[in-house]
């Protein structure tokens, strides 16, 4: 699956980091960094992260196709 974060929307709330620490983290300047792809086994955690984001900045795509979340 592919993970996209709209960095114009992201306000560093950190909810995604709590939900899926393997995918999302902060650098020393409080800027979000994240993996752009992830194994399907992490889908549940990534979807939780997307749902937890207060500004809905996270999009999850199937590896090949359209937005799924």
């Amino acid at each position, binding site marked *: 699956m592919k993970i996209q974060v709209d960095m114009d929307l992201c306000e560093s709330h950190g909810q995604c980091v709590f939900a899926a620490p393997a995918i999302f*983290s902060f650098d020393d300047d409080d800027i979000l960094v994240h993996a752009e792809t992830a194994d399907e086994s992490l889908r549940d955690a990534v979807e939780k992260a997307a749902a937890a984001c207060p500004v809905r900045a996270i999009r999850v795509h199937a590896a090949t196709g359209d937005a799924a979340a």
Partner: protein
Amino acid sequence: MSSRFDEHGILVVGASLAGLRACAALRKHGYDGRLTVIGEEPHLPYDRPPLSKEFLAGETGGADLSLPVAGLGITWQLGRRATRLHLAARTVEVGDGTRFPFDGLVIATGSTARLWPAAPAGVHTLRGLDDARSLRAALLRRDGRLLVIGAGFVGSEVAATARGAGIEVTVVDPAPQPLHRAVGEAAGEFVAALHRQAGVDLRTSTKVVSLEGVGKLTGARLSDGTEVPATAAVVALGSAPATGWLAGSGLDITAGVRCDRHARVLRRDGTPAPGVVAAGDVTRWPHPWADAPGVTLGHWSHAAEQAETAARSLLFPAAPARYCPVPSFWSDQYDVKFRSVGLPALADSADVREYDLGARRLDVAYFRQGRLIGALTGNRVARIAAYRAQLAADLEGR
């Protein structure tokens, strides 16, 4: 699925974050029956946090606040205020006497801002979109002086937003520092310094005794004998769970709708009311860190997360989910992003690890009986994840 809901379906009272997230979770977990949402406001669900920040500053239009409702198959009953719950008959009555029958009920009526009795015109509260619109209109006139009564999160954010728009602001609070009860002395002092540096006239350890003005606000009299001029005021004295409509229902509504750790609603005898769950600001529920009868949280993430638990407990009563979160909230004031995890309000001591007004950075760890119970950072969100992990580990051991 599940024939238990086949006759009347599931009814949600409260058309905001918790109610909507409950609906989304019900659908996600396979509920495909009737879903009706009753909401007092005429609006579809929207996000409240921007109301004291970007929206109030005039930066965002109303549309940007809306929460996603598409594809959930909800029958909306908006502009209708629930006035009674008849638990035995399994109906909810609204203002005009119409009764909505239900098989399953989600209570998500949030909380209501405390009001100032007999306030003259020009005195606002800030809870909903309509409140924010009228306050914004008053601020956009930019010709007056704003009085903020109460320096909690909403009061402090409003003061920051108004200062950002160049408006003269006076903030009055009976505590020695802003946010004192929620985050303690050091963090409170940090916020006080932010206000003062921004030119806010901050009056702490002081109460507003009376609001002056015949018909229209002109100023306020304070407990230290002084008077402050004001053309508009915001009453930000906190909020109370919106449980009025549940009086006489047999549910336990002392200081919020009392729930168990599965978000099931308890009756006055302490047993769960069958098929009734609740979520969000309206609830009081047990948390391992808190003494009985538990905590009430006015945080965005709490509303979103507890709603998920409530939906699952309603659909799968034999295997109800457990709600045991590390609470978290944020607050944006001036150029500082405050982020918090845990329950700092319950701490008995605090360790200030960074306090740098110049760099606008703050890092405070909170303890109860020597154990970490929460943390607050300002412009240091990268540190919050570690605190949260430690708190999550503590909860797992309980």
